[in-house]
Protein backbone atom coordinates (compact mmCIF):
# COMPACT_ATOMS: atom_id res chain seq x y z
CA UNK A 1 0.00 0.00 0.00
CA UNK A 2 1.45 3.34 -1.05
CA UNK A 3 1.81 6.39 1.18
CA UNK A 4 -0.91 8.18 -0.73
CA UNK A 5 -3.39 5.46 0.02
CA UNK A 6 -2.50 5.48 3.68
CA UNK A 7 -2.96 9.24 3.83
CA UNK A 8 -6.30 8.91 2.09
CA UNK A 9 -7.47 6.18 4.46
CA UNK A 10 -6.29 8.12 7.49
CA UNK A 11 -8.12 11.25 6.41
CA UNK A 12 -11.26 9.27 5.62
CA UNK A 13 -11.22 7.90 9.18
CA UNK A 14 -10.60 11.39 10.59
CA UNK A 15 -13.51 12.73 8.59
CA UNK A 16 -15.72 9.88 9.77
CA UNK A 17 -14.72 10.57 13.35
CA UNK A 18 -15.51 14.29 13.12
CA UNK A 19 -18.72 13.59 11.24
CA UNK A 20 -19.99 11.14 13.84
CA UNK A 21 -19.33 13.59 16.65
CA UNK A 22 -21.14 16.29 14.70
CA UNK A 23 -24.01 13.87 14.38
CA UNK A 24 -24.26 13.48 18.15
CA UNK A 25 -24.59 17.25 18.49
CA UNK A 26 -26.85 17.72 15.50
CA UNK A 27 -29.26 14.90 16.41
CA UNK A 28 -30.56 16.64 19.52
CA UNK A 29 -30.61 19.99 17.78
CA UNK A 30 -32.60 18.77 14.81
CA UNK A 31 -35.17 17.03 17.02
CA UNK A 32 -35.66 20.08 19.24
CA UNK A 33 -35.93 22.20 16.14
CA UNK A 34 -38.14 19.82 14.23
CA UNK A 35 -40.52 18.78 16.99
CA UNK A 36 -40.71 21.83 19.19
CA UNK A 37 -40.02 24.36 16.42
CA UNK A 38 -37.46 25.85 18.74
CA UNK A 39 -34.16 27.52 17.83
CA UNK A 40 -31.87 26.61 20.69
CA UNK A 41 -28.62 28.57 20.65
CA UNK A 42 -27.82 27.09 24.07
CA UNK A 43 -27.44 23.58 22.65
CA UNK A 44 -23.68 24.07 22.49
CA UNK A 45 -23.71 24.93 26.19
CA UNK A 46 -24.99 21.43 26.97
CA UNK A 47 -21.94 20.08 25.16
CA UNK A 48 -19.69 22.37 27.17
CA UNK A 49 -21.33 21.51 30.50
CA UNK A 50 -21.10 17.81 29.65
CA UNK A 51 -17.40 18.06 28.85
CA UNK A 52 -16.69 19.97 32.09
CA UNK A 53 -18.65 17.49 34.19
CA UNK A 54 -16.80 14.57 32.63
CA UNK A 55 -13.45 16.29 33.13
CA UNK A 56 -14.02 17.01 36.80
CA UNK A 57 -15.55 13.64 37.65
CA UNK A 58 -12.65 11.98 35.84
CA UNK A 59 -10.23 14.08 37.86
CA UNK A 60 -12.05 13.28 41.11
CA UNK A 61 -12.32 9.53 40.60
CA UNK A 62 -9.19 9.09 38.53
CA UNK A 63 -11.20 7.02 36.12
CA UNK A 64 -12.33 8.22 32.70
CA UNK A 65 -15.16 5.69 32.49
CA UNK A 66 -16.83 6.85 35.69
CA UNK A 67 -16.42 10.40 34.44
CA UNK A 68 -18.04 9.55 31.13
CA UNK A 69 -20.94 7.68 32.74
CA UNK A 70 -21.82 10.24 35.38
CA UNK A 71 -20.94 13.21 33.19
CA UNK A 72 -23.37 12.10 30.50
CA UNK A 73 -26.04 11.50 33.13
CA UNK A 74 -25.32 14.91 34.60
CA UNK A 75 -25.60 16.56 31.18
CA UNK A 76 -28.96 14.85 30.63
CA UNK A 77 -30.19 16.01 34.04
CA UNK A 78 -28.98 19.53 33.32
CA UNK A 79 -30.78 19.51 29.97
CA UNK A 80 -34.02 18.28 31.55
CA UNK A 81 -33.75 20.90 34.28
CA UNK A 82 -33.20 23.65 31.72
CA UNK A 83 -36.19 22.47 29.72
CA UNK A 84 -38.55 22.28 32.67
CA UNK A 85 -37.47 25.55 34.25
CA UNK A 86 -36.97 27.93 31.33
CA UNK A 87 -37.03 26.62 27.79
CA UNK A 88 -40.56 25.27 28.07
CA UNK A 89 -41.81 28.85 28.19
CA UNK A 90 -40.39 29.55 24.76
CA UNK A 91 -42.13 26.88 22.65
CA UNK A 92 -45.12 29.06 21.92
CA UNK A 93 -43.06 32.14 21.23
CA UNK A 94 -41.69 33.29 17.87
CA UNK A 95 -38.22 32.41 16.70
CA UNK A 96 -36.82 35.82 17.56
CA UNK A 97 -37.78 35.53 21.22
CA UNK A 98 -36.21 32.07 21.24
CA UNK A 99 -32.99 33.45 19.81
CA UNK A 100 -32.83 36.16 22.48
CA UNK A 101 -33.85 33.82 25.31
CA UNK A 102 -31.45 31.02 24.47
CA UNK A 103 -28.68 33.54 23.81
CA UNK A 104 -29.22 34.74 27.38
CA UNK A 105 -28.96 31.15 28.62
CA UNK A 106 -25.78 30.67 26.61
CA UNK A 107 -24.22 33.71 28.30
CA UNK A 108 -25.28 32.45 31.71
CA UNK A 109 -23.91 28.95 31.09
CA UNK A 110 -20.58 30.35 29.89
CA UNK A 111 -20.25 32.60 32.89
CA UNK A 112 -21.48 29.96 35.30
CA UNK A 113 -18.83 27.55 34.04
CA UNK A 114 -16.21 30.28 34.35
CA UNK A 115 -17.33 30.92 37.93
CA UNK A 116 -17.06 27.26 38.89
CA UNK A 117 -14.07 26.07 36.90
CA UNK A 118 -12.22 29.30 36.08
CA UNK A 119 -11.14 30.69 32.71
CA UNK A 120 -8.28 28.27 32.11
CA UNK A 121 -8.99 25.19 29.99
CA UNK A 122 -9.54 22.07 32.05
CA UNK A 123 -7.45 18.98 31.39
CA UNK A 124 -9.17 15.81 30.21
CA UNK A 125 -6.82 13.19 28.87
CA UNK A 126 -7.53 9.97 27.07
CA UNK A 127 -7.86 6.87 29.28
CA UNK A 128 -4.68 4.85 29.76
CA UNK A 129 -6.01 1.84 27.88
CA UNK A 130 -6.77 3.88 24.75
CA UNK A 131 -3.82 6.23 24.67
CA UNK A 132 -1.54 4.52 22.15
CA UNK A 133 -1.86 3.89 18.44
CA UNK A 134 -2.99 0.54 17.12
CA UNK A 135 -1.74 -1.19 14.04
CA UNK A 136 -4.68 -1.86 11.75
CA UNK A 137 -2.56 -3.60 9.15
CA UNK A 138 1.13 -3.60 8.44
CA UNK A 139 2.36 -0.05 8.00
CA UNK A 140 -0.87 1.64 9.05
CA UNK A 141 -1.22 2.93 12.59
CA UNK A 142 -4.24 4.81 13.90
CA UNK A 143 -4.90 6.30 17.33
CA UNK A 144 -6.92 3.82 19.37
CA UNK A 145 -8.94 6.60 21.01
CA UNK A 146 -9.99 7.83 17.56
CA UNK A 147 -11.11 4.32 16.69
CA UNK A 148 -13.03 4.26 19.97
CA UNK A 149 -14.74 7.55 19.03
CA UNK A 150 -15.77 6.11 15.69
CA UNK A 151 -17.08 2.98 17.40
CA UNK A 152 -19.10 4.93 19.95
CA UNK A 153 -20.46 7.24 17.26
CA UNK A 154 -21.61 4.32 15.11
CA UNK A 155 -23.09 2.54 18.14
CA UNK A 156 -25.06 5.60 19.20
CA UNK A 157 -26.25 6.17 15.64
CA UNK A 158 -27.44 2.55 15.45
CA UNK A 159 -29.13 2.83 18.82
CA UNK A 160 -30.90 5.99 17.75
CA UNK A 161 -31.96 4.35 14.49
CA UNK A 162 -33.44 1.51 16.50
CA UNK A 163 -35.23 3.81 18.95
CA UNK A 164 -36.59 6.10 16.25
CA UNK A 165 -37.80 3.40 13.87
CA UNK A 166 -38.66 0.48 16.15
CA UNK A 167 -40.06 1.80 19.43
CA UNK A 168 -43.23 3.53 20.47
CA UNK A 169 -41.25 6.51 21.74
CA UNK A 170 -39.52 6.84 18.40
CA UNK A 171 -42.85 6.71 16.63
CA UNK A 172 -44.10 9.57 18.76
CA UNK A 173 -40.94 11.54 18.05
CA UNK A 174 -41.37 11.04 14.31
CA UNK A 175 -45.04 11.96 14.54
CA UNK A 176 -44.13 15.08 16.48
CA UNK A 177 -41.57 16.12 13.90
CA UNK A 178 -43.90 15.58 10.98
CA UNK A 179 -46.98 17.24 12.47
CA UNK A 180 -46.99 18.41 16.04
CA UNK A 181 -50.67 19.34 16.32
CA UNK A 182 -51.79 16.03 14.88
CA UNK A 183 -49.53 14.11 17.25
CA UNK A 184 -51.03 16.00 20.18
CA UNK A 185 -54.52 15.31 18.92
CA UNK A 186 -53.72 11.59 18.75
CA UNK A 187 -52.93 11.59 22.45
CA UNK A 188 -49.17 11.96 22.62
CA UNK A 189 -48.15 13.52 25.91
CA UNK A 190 -46.04 16.16 24.22
CA UNK A 191 -44.88 17.85 27.38
CA UNK A 192 -43.29 14.67 28.65
CA UNK A 193 -42.03 13.85 25.17
CA UNK A 194 -40.39 17.27 24.88
CA UNK A 195 -38.60 16.90 28.20
CA UNK A 196 -37.37 13.43 27.25
CA UNK A 197 -36.20 14.53 23.81
CA UNK A 198 -34.39 17.42 25.42
CA UNK A 199 -32.72 15.24 28.02
CA UNK A 200 -31.72 12.74 25.33
CA UNK A 201 -30.28 15.53 23.19
CA UNK A 202 -28.34 16.78 26.20
CA UNK A 203 -27.03 13.27 26.89
CA UNK A 204 -25.80 13.02 23.29
CA UNK A 205 -24.08 16.38 23.75
CA UNK A 206 -22.47 14.95 26.87
CA UNK A 207 -21.21 11.92 24.96
CA UNK A 208 -19.75 14.21 22.30
CA UNK A 209 -18.15 16.29 25.04
CA UNK A 210 -16.56 13.20 26.54
CA UNK A 211 -15.25 12.05 23.16
CA UNK A 212 -13.99 15.40 21.86
CA UNK A 213 -12.85 16.74 25.24
CA UNK A 214 -9.54 14.87 25.21
CA UNK A 215 -8.98 15.71 21.53
CA UNK A 216 -9.87 19.39 21.63
CA UNK A 217 -9.66 21.70 24.63
CA UNK A 218 -12.28 21.73 27.39
CA UNK A 219 -12.81 25.48 27.74
CA UNK A 220 -15.45 28.19 27.98
CA UNK A 221 -16.96 28.94 24.60
CA UNK A 222 -16.09 25.50 23.17
CA UNK A 223 -19.80 25.04 22.40
CA UNK A 224 -20.30 28.07 20.22
CA UNK A 225 -18.09 27.37 17.23
CA UNK A 226 -19.24 23.78 16.98
CA UNK A 227 -22.88 24.83 17.41
CA UNK A 228 -22.72 26.79 14.17
CA UNK A 229 -21.36 23.75 12.36
CA UNK A 230 -24.13 21.64 13.90
CA UNK A 231 -26.69 24.12 12.56
CA UNK A 232 -25.10 23.81 9.12
CA UNK A 233 -25.44 20.04 9.42
CA UNK A 234 -29.13 20.06 10.27
CA UNK A 235 -29.94 22.59 7.57
CA UNK A 236 -28.16 20.48 4.97
CA UNK A 237 -29.92 17.37 6.21
CA UNK A 238 -33.35 18.93 6.50
CA UNK A 239 -34.63 20.13 9.86
CA UNK A 240 -36.21 17.43 12.00
CA UNK A 241 -34.72 14.52 10.09
CA UNK A 242 -32.39 12.20 12.00
CA UNK A 243 -31.37 10.49 8.77
CA UNK A 244 -30.65 13.91 7.27
CA UNK A 245 -28.61 14.87 10.31
CA UNK A 246 -26.60 11.65 10.03
CA UNK A 247 -25.80 12.02 6.34
CA UNK A 248 -25.33 15.78 6.66
CA UNK A 249 -22.91 15.27 9.54
CA UNK A 250 -20.86 12.70 7.60
CA UNK A 251 -20.83 14.98 4.53
CA UNK A 252 -19.69 17.97 6.54
CA UNK A 253 -17.18 15.98 8.58
CA UNK A 254 -15.52 14.41 5.58
CA UNK A 255 -15.55 17.52 3.40
CA UNK A 256 -14.19 19.68 6.20
CA UNK A 257 -11.42 17.20 7.03
CA UNK A 258 -10.54 16.61 3.39
CA UNK A 259 -10.47 20.35 2.75
CA UNK A 260 -8.09 20.98 5.61
CA UNK A 261 -5.75 18.23 4.44
CA UNK A 262 -5.81 18.52 0.70
CA UNK A 263 -6.43 22.24 0.14
CA UNK A 264 -2.90 23.18 1.23
CA UNK A 265 -1.46 20.59 -1.18
CA UNK A 266 -3.64 21.85 -4.01
CA UNK A 267 -2.83 25.48 -3.28
CA UNK A 268 0.88 24.74 -3.05
CA UNK A 269 0.77 23.69 -6.68
CA UNK A 270 -0.98 26.90 -7.74
CA UNK A 271 0.84 29.61 -5.79
CA UNK A 272 3.86 30.37 -3.68
CA UNK A 273 4.20 28.19 -0.56
CA UNK A 274 3.81 31.23 1.67
CA UNK A 275 0.56 32.39 0.07
CA UNK A 276 -0.75 28.83 0.07
CA UNK A 277 -0.03 28.43 3.77
CA UNK A 278 -2.13 31.52 4.46
CA UNK A 279 -4.98 31.06 2.05
CA UNK A 280 -5.59 27.30 2.22
CA UNK A 281 -6.87 26.98 5.82
CA UNK A 282 -9.30 29.86 5.33
CA UNK A 283 -10.61 28.50 2.06
CA UNK A 284 -10.95 25.09 3.69
CA UNK A 285 -13.07 26.65 6.45
CA UNK A 286 -15.37 28.13 3.83
CA UNK A 287 -16.04 24.75 2.18
CA UNK A 288 -18.86 23.63 4.49
CA UNK A 289 -20.67 26.93 4.09
CA UNK A 290 -20.30 26.66 0.33
CA UNK A 291 -21.72 23.16 0.60
CA UNK A 292 -24.69 24.44 2.56
CA UNK A 293 -25.35 27.32 0.15
CA UNK A 294 -25.18 24.90 -2.77
CA UNK A 295 -27.53 22.41 -1.14
CA UNK A 296 -30.02 25.14 -0.26
CA UNK A 297 -29.83 26.52 -3.78
CA UNK A 298 -30.96 23.24 -5.29
CA UNK A 299 -32.96 21.82 -2.36
CA UNK A 300 -34.28 24.83 -0.42
CA UNK A 301 -35.56 22.58 2.41
CA UNK A 302 -32.48 20.45 2.84
CA UNK A 303 -31.74 16.95 1.59
CA UNK A 304 -34.43 15.15 3.60
CA UNK A 305 -37.31 17.53 4.29
CA UNK A 306 -39.65 16.28 7.02
CA UNK A 307 -42.58 18.64 7.20
CA UNK A 308 -45.11 17.82 4.53
Amino acid sequence: MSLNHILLLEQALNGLQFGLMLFLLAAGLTLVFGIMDMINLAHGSLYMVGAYLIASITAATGNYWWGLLFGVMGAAAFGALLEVSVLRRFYQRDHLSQVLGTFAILLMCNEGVRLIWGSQPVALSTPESLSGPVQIFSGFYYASFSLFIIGVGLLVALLMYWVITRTRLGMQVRAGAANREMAMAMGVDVQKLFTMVFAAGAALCGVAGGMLGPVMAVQVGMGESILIVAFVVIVIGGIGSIRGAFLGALFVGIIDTAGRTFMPMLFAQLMSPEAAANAAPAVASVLIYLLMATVLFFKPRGLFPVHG
Partner: protein
Amino acid sequence: MDEAADILDHRLHWRWALPALMLLLAFPLLASAADAEFYVTLASRILIFALAATSLNLILGFGGMVSFGHAAFMGVGAYAVAIAMQQGLGSAWVAWPLAMGVSALFALLIGAISLRTQGVYFIMITLAFAQMLYFLAISIKAYGGDDGLQMPARSAIGGGVDLTRDRDFYYVTLLLVVLSIYAVARLLNARFGHVLQAIRENETRMTAIGFPVYRYKLVAFTLAGAMAGLSGVLLANLGGFVSPSIMQWSQSGMLMVMAILGGVGYLYGGILGAVFFLLLEELLSHYTIHWQLGLGVVLLLVVLVAPNGLASLLKSRRIG
Protein backbone atom coordinates in the same frame (compact mmCIF):
# COMPACT_ATOMS: atom_id res chain seq x y z
CA MET B 1 -54.10 60.15 5.56
CA ASP B 2 -56.57 57.33 5.83
CA GLU B 3 -56.49 54.95 8.73
CA ALA B 4 -55.36 51.87 6.84
CA ALA B 5 -52.10 53.53 5.91
CA ASP B 6 -51.73 55.06 9.35
CA ILE B 7 -50.99 51.77 11.11
CA LEU B 8 -48.00 51.34 8.83
CA ASP B 9 -46.66 54.80 9.58
CA HIS B 10 -43.95 55.43 12.12
CA ARG B 11 -43.91 58.81 13.73
CA LEU B 12 -40.72 60.37 14.99
CA HIS B 13 -42.33 61.11 18.37
CA TRP B 14 -40.75 64.52 18.72
CA ARG B 15 -42.08 64.85 22.24
CA TRP B 16 -39.63 62.16 23.35
CA ALA B 17 -37.04 62.40 20.64
CA LEU B 18 -36.32 66.12 20.99
CA PRO B 19 -35.37 66.06 24.70
CA ALA B 20 -33.30 62.93 24.05
CA LEU B 21 -31.56 64.67 21.18
CA MET B 22 -30.89 67.73 23.33
CA LEU B 23 -29.37 65.49 25.96
CA LEU B 24 -27.19 63.80 23.36
CA LEU B 25 -26.09 67.18 22.00
CA ALA B 26 -25.17 68.39 25.46
CA PHE B 27 -23.51 65.13 26.46
CA PRO B 28 -19.85 65.98 25.57
CA LEU B 29 -20.14 69.25 27.47
CA LEU B 30 -21.60 67.48 30.49
CA ALA B 31 -18.93 64.81 30.28
CA SER B 32 -16.09 67.32 30.19
CA ALA B 33 -17.70 69.29 33.02
CA ALA B 34 -17.74 66.09 35.06
CA ASP B 35 -14.17 65.37 33.93
CA ALA B 36 -15.26 62.11 32.31
CA GLU B 37 -14.08 62.56 28.72
CA PHE B 38 -13.72 58.82 28.37
CA TYR B 39 -17.47 58.50 28.15
CA VAL B 40 -17.59 60.51 24.93
CA THR B 41 -15.81 57.66 23.14
CA LEU B 42 -18.14 55.16 24.77
CA ALA B 43 -21.13 57.20 23.64
CA SER B 44 -19.76 57.26 20.08
CA ARG B 45 -19.41 53.49 20.17
CA ILE B 46 -22.97 53.08 21.40
CA LEU B 47 -24.27 55.41 18.67
CA ILE B 48 -22.39 53.40 16.04
CA PHE B 49 -23.99 50.17 17.20
CA ALA B 50 -27.34 51.93 17.41
CA LEU B 51 -26.92 52.73 13.72
CA ALA B 52 -26.02 49.13 12.91
CA ALA B 53 -28.93 47.73 14.94
CA THR B 54 -31.29 50.20 13.27
CA SER B 55 -30.16 49.05 9.85
CA LEU B 56 -30.79 45.45 10.87
CA ASN B 57 -34.17 46.43 12.26
CA LEU B 58 -35.08 47.85 8.85
CA ILE B 59 -35.00 44.39 7.28
CA LEU B 60 -35.68 42.31 10.42
CA GLY B 61 -38.47 44.34 11.94
CA PHE B 62 -40.11 45.93 8.95
CA GLY B 63 -39.28 43.47 6.19
CA GLY B 64 -39.47 40.24 8.19
CA MET B 65 -36.05 39.14 6.93
CA VAL B 66 -34.13 37.52 9.77
CA SER B 67 -30.56 38.08 8.65
CA PHE B 68 -27.96 36.31 10.77
CA GLY B 69 -25.07 37.79 8.82
CA HIS B 70 -25.53 41.49 9.21
CA ALA B 71 -22.14 42.08 10.82
CA ALA B 72 -20.58 41.09 7.50
CA PHE B 73 -21.78 44.33 5.90
CA MET B 74 -20.45 46.27 8.85
CA GLY B 75 -17.14 44.53 8.31
CA VAL B 76 -17.12 45.20 4.56
CA GLY B 77 -17.65 48.91 5.22
CA ALA B 78 -14.92 48.95 7.85
CA TYR B 79 -12.45 47.11 5.61
CA ALA B 80 -13.33 49.30 2.62
CA VAL B 81 -12.55 52.51 4.48
CA ALA B 82 -9.38 51.06 6.00
CA ILE B 83 -8.14 49.81 2.64
CA ALA B 84 -8.96 53.16 1.03
CA MET B 85 -6.94 54.84 3.77
CA GLN B 86 -4.08 52.44 3.15
CA GLN B 87 -4.15 53.47 -0.52
CA GLY B 88 -3.93 57.11 0.51
CA LEU B 89 -7.62 57.93 0.13
CA GLY B 90 -8.30 59.75 3.40
CA SER B 91 -11.14 62.09 2.50
CA ALA B 92 -14.37 61.12 4.22
CA TRP B 93 -16.36 62.68 1.39
CA VAL B 94 -14.95 60.12 -1.04
CA ALA B 95 -14.05 57.13 1.11
CA TRP B 96 -17.24 56.89 3.16
CA PRO B 97 -19.73 56.85 0.26
CA LEU B 98 -17.37 54.47 -1.50
CA ALA B 99 -17.36 52.12 1.49
CA MET B 100 -21.14 52.30 1.73
CA GLY B 101 -21.35 51.52 -1.97
CA VAL B 102 -19.12 48.47 -1.56
CA SER B 103 -21.27 47.26 1.35
CA ALA B 104 -24.40 47.83 -0.69
CA LEU B 105 -22.91 45.86 -3.57
CA PHE B 106 -22.11 42.92 -1.29
CA ALA B 107 -25.61 43.12 0.20
CA LEU B 108 -27.11 43.15 -3.27
CA LEU B 109 -25.22 40.03 -4.35
CA ILE B 110 -25.76 38.12 -1.10
CA GLY B 111 -29.39 39.20 -0.89
CA ALA B 112 -30.07 38.21 -4.48
CA ILE B 113 -29.15 34.60 -3.64
CA SER B 114 -30.36 34.43 -0.03
CA LEU B 115 -33.81 35.89 -0.66
CA ARG B 116 -34.67 32.87 -2.77
CA THR B 117 -34.94 30.90 0.48
CA GLN B 118 -37.29 31.49 3.39
CA GLY B 119 -37.59 31.18 7.13
CA VAL B 120 -34.89 29.28 8.95
CA TYR B 121 -33.09 28.58 5.71
CA PHE B 122 -32.77 32.30 5.09
CA ILE B 123 -31.25 32.71 8.56
CA MET B 124 -28.71 30.01 7.82
CA ILE B 125 -27.76 31.09 4.32
CA THR B 126 -27.10 34.68 5.44
CA LEU B 127 -24.98 33.22 8.22
CA ALA B 128 -23.11 31.13 5.66
CA PHE B 129 -22.26 34.12 3.50
CA ALA B 130 -21.12 36.11 6.52
CA GLN B 131 -18.85 33.25 7.55
CA MET B 132 -17.40 33.10 4.04
CA LEU B 133 -16.53 36.80 4.19
CA TYR B 134 -15.10 36.30 7.67
CA PHE B 135 -12.77 33.54 6.53
CA LEU B 136 -11.96 35.51 3.38
CA ALA B 137 -10.82 38.43 5.56
CA ILE B 138 -8.66 36.05 7.57
CA SER B 139 -7.01 34.61 4.47
CA ILE B 140 -6.02 37.82 2.66
CA LYS B 141 -2.61 38.61 4.11
CA ALA B 142 -2.30 41.84 2.09
CA TYR B 143 -5.06 43.28 4.24
CA GLY B 144 -3.73 42.04 7.53
CA GLY B 145 -5.29 38.58 7.56
CA ASP B 146 -5.88 37.32 11.05
CA ASP B 147 -4.04 40.24 12.64
CA GLY B 148 -6.30 42.89 11.20
CA LEU B 149 -5.56 46.15 9.51
CA GLN B 150 -4.38 49.35 11.18
CA MET B 151 -5.89 52.67 10.14
CA PRO B 152 -2.94 55.08 10.15
CA ALA B 153 -5.29 58.04 10.70
CA ARG B 154 -8.95 58.92 10.93
CA SER B 155 -10.71 60.08 7.78
CA ALA B 156 -10.51 63.79 6.99
CA ILE B 157 -13.66 65.88 6.67
CA GLY B 158 -12.29 69.41 6.44
CA GLY B 159 -14.10 72.64 7.20
CA GLY B 160 -12.75 72.87 10.71
CA VAL B 161 -14.03 69.43 11.72
CA ASP B 162 -11.23 67.27 13.02
CA LEU B 163 -12.26 63.64 13.54
CA THR B 164 -9.21 62.93 15.65
CA ARG B 165 -10.84 65.05 18.34
CA ASP B 166 -13.20 62.75 20.20
CA ARG B 167 -15.84 65.43 20.55
CA ASP B 168 -15.92 66.17 16.80
CA PHE B 169 -16.11 62.47 16.10
CA TYR B 170 -19.04 62.15 18.47
CA TYR B 171 -20.98 64.95 16.83
CA VAL B 172 -20.37 63.61 13.33
CA THR B 173 -21.57 60.19 14.47
CA LEU B 174 -24.62 61.70 16.14
CA LEU B 175 -25.45 63.66 13.01
CA LEU B 176 -25.23 60.54 10.86
CA VAL B 177 -27.38 58.55 13.28
CA VAL B 178 -30.05 61.27 13.36
CA LEU B 179 -30.02 61.55 9.56
CA SER B 180 -30.28 57.78 9.23
CA ILE B 181 -33.22 57.55 11.62
CA TYR B 182 -34.93 60.35 9.73
CA ALA B 183 -34.26 58.62 6.43
CA VAL B 184 -35.58 55.30 7.76
CA ALA B 185 -38.74 57.01 9.06
CA ARG B 186 -39.30 58.71 5.69
CA LEU B 187 -38.71 55.44 3.90
CA LEU B 188 -41.14 53.53 6.12
CA ASN B 189 -43.86 56.12 5.75
CA ALA B 190 -43.48 56.25 2.01
CA ARG B 191 -45.10 53.82 -0.37
CA PHE B 192 -41.98 51.67 -0.36
CA GLY B 193 -42.13 51.24 3.42
CA HIS B 194 -45.81 50.44 3.37
CA VAL B 195 -45.27 47.75 0.78
CA LEU B 196 -42.33 46.36 2.74
CA GLN B 197 -44.35 46.08 5.95
CA ALA B 198 -47.26 44.58 4.09
CA ILE B 199 -44.89 41.93 2.71
CA ARG B 200 -43.82 41.16 6.28
CA GLU B 201 -47.45 40.69 7.25
CA ASN B 202 -48.50 38.56 4.31
CA GLU B 203 -46.05 37.82 1.56
CA THR B 204 -48.34 35.50 -0.36
CA ARG B 205 -51.08 38.07 -0.58
CA MET B 206 -48.71 40.80 -1.73
CA THR B 207 -47.43 38.47 -4.44
CA ALA B 208 -50.98 37.68 -5.46
CA ILE B 209 -51.91 41.37 -5.67
CA GLY B 210 -49.05 41.74 -8.09
CA PHE B 211 -46.26 43.42 -6.18
CA PRO B 212 -42.72 42.40 -7.17
CA VAL B 213 -42.05 41.12 -3.63
CA TYR B 214 -38.57 39.81 -4.32
CA ARG B 215 -37.41 43.16 -5.72
CA TYR B 216 -38.80 45.14 -2.78
CA LYS B 217 -37.08 42.85 -0.30
CA LEU B 218 -33.82 43.00 -2.22
CA VAL B 219 -33.85 46.81 -2.28
CA ALA B 220 -34.48 46.91 1.48
CA PHE B 221 -31.72 44.36 2.07
CA THR B 222 -29.30 46.44 -0.01
CA LEU B 223 -30.18 49.68 1.77
CA ALA B 224 -29.71 48.02 5.14
CA GLY B 225 -26.35 46.71 3.94
CA ALA B 226 -25.26 50.23 2.99
CA MET B 227 -26.34 51.57 6.38
CA ALA B 228 -24.50 48.79 8.19
CA GLY B 229 -21.49 49.65 6.01
CA LEU B 230 -21.64 53.23 7.28
CA SER B 231 -21.62 52.02 10.86
CA GLY B 232 -18.60 49.87 10.02
CA VAL B 233 -16.86 52.93 8.55
CA LEU B 234 -17.43 54.79 11.80
CA LEU B 235 -16.35 51.86 13.94
CA ALA B 236 -13.09 51.49 11.98
CA ASN B 237 -12.42 55.19 12.40
CA LEU B 238 -13.21 55.10 16.09
CA GLY B 239 -10.91 52.21 16.90
CA GLY B 240 -8.30 52.95 14.24
CA PHE B 241 -8.27 49.24 13.55
CA VAL B 242 -10.21 46.60 11.63
CA SER B 243 -9.96 42.87 12.23
CA PRO B 244 -11.91 39.90 10.93
CA SER B 245 -13.57 39.49 14.33
CA ILE B 246 -15.87 42.40 13.42
CA MET B 247 -17.57 39.95 11.03
CA GLN B 248 -17.71 36.97 13.37
CA TRP B 249 -21.09 35.30 13.75
CA SER B 250 -21.28 36.35 17.37
CA GLN B 251 -21.22 39.96 16.20
CA SER B 252 -24.18 39.29 13.94
CA GLY B 253 -25.85 37.58 16.87
CA MET B 254 -25.21 40.59 19.07
CA LEU B 255 -26.76 42.95 16.52
CA MET B 256 -29.77 40.67 16.36
CA VAL B 257 -30.03 40.59 20.15
CA MET B 258 -29.89 44.40 20.23
CA ALA B 259 -32.68 44.72 17.68
CA ILE B 260 -34.88 42.12 19.38
CA LEU B 261 -34.16 43.57 22.80
CA GLY B 262 -35.08 47.08 21.69
CA GLY B 263 -38.11 45.97 19.77
CA VAL B 264 -38.28 44.70 16.20
CA GLY B 265 -40.61 46.77 14.09
CA TYR B 266 -40.25 49.89 16.20
CA LEU B 267 -38.49 52.90 14.69
CA TYR B 268 -36.34 53.41 17.78
CA GLY B 269 -36.00 49.70 18.57
CA GLY B 270 -32.43 49.42 17.30
CA ILE B 271 -31.29 52.48 19.24
CA LEU B 272 -32.99 51.42 22.47
CA GLY B 273 -31.55 47.92 22.21
CA ALA B 274 -28.01 49.07 21.50
CA VAL B 275 -28.05 51.67 24.28
CA PHE B 276 -29.52 49.26 26.81
CA PHE B 277 -27.24 46.35 25.87
CA LEU B 278 -23.97 48.29 25.77
CA LEU B 279 -24.70 50.40 28.85
CA LEU B 280 -25.63 47.29 30.80
CA GLU B 281 -22.45 45.60 29.61
CA GLU B 282 -20.40 48.66 30.63
CA LEU B 283 -22.12 48.97 33.98
CA LEU B 284 -21.92 45.31 34.94
CA SER B 285 -18.31 44.96 33.85
CA HIS B 286 -17.41 47.71 36.33
CA TYR B 287 -18.69 45.64 39.22
CA THR B 288 -17.68 42.11 38.36
CA ILE B 289 -15.69 40.17 35.83
CA HIS B 290 -18.65 37.80 35.66
CA TRP B 291 -20.86 40.48 34.12
CA GLN B 292 -22.10 38.12 31.40
CA LEU B 293 -24.07 36.26 34.04
CA GLY B 294 -25.93 39.43 34.96
CA LEU B 295 -26.38 40.33 31.31
CA GLY B 296 -27.89 36.89 30.66
CA VAL B 297 -30.30 37.22 33.58
CA VAL B 298 -31.46 40.64 32.44
CA LEU B 299 -31.88 39.53 28.83
CA LEU B 300 -33.88 36.51 29.95
CA LEU B 301 -36.12 38.68 32.13
CA VAL B 302 -36.67 41.15 29.30
CA VAL B 303 -37.65 38.43 26.86
CA LEU B 304 -40.06 36.93 29.39
CA VAL B 305 -41.55 40.25 30.56
CA ALA B 306 -41.50 42.26 27.34
CA PRO B 307 -42.00 39.80 24.49
CA ASN B 308 -41.94 42.58 21.88
CA GLY B 309 -38.89 44.35 23.21
CA LEU B 310 -38.28 47.42 25.31
CA ALA B 311 -39.95 49.79 22.87
CA SER B 312 -43.23 47.96 23.40
CA LEU B 313 -43.09 48.80 27.09
CA LEU B 314 -42.94 52.50 26.34
CA LYS B 315 -46.13 52.46 24.36
CA SER B 316 -49.54 51.62 25.62
CA ARG B 317 -50.58 50.57 22.15
CA ARG B 318 -48.51 49.27 19.33
CA ILE B 319 -47.99 51.84 16.64
CA GLY B 320 -47.19 49.78 13.59
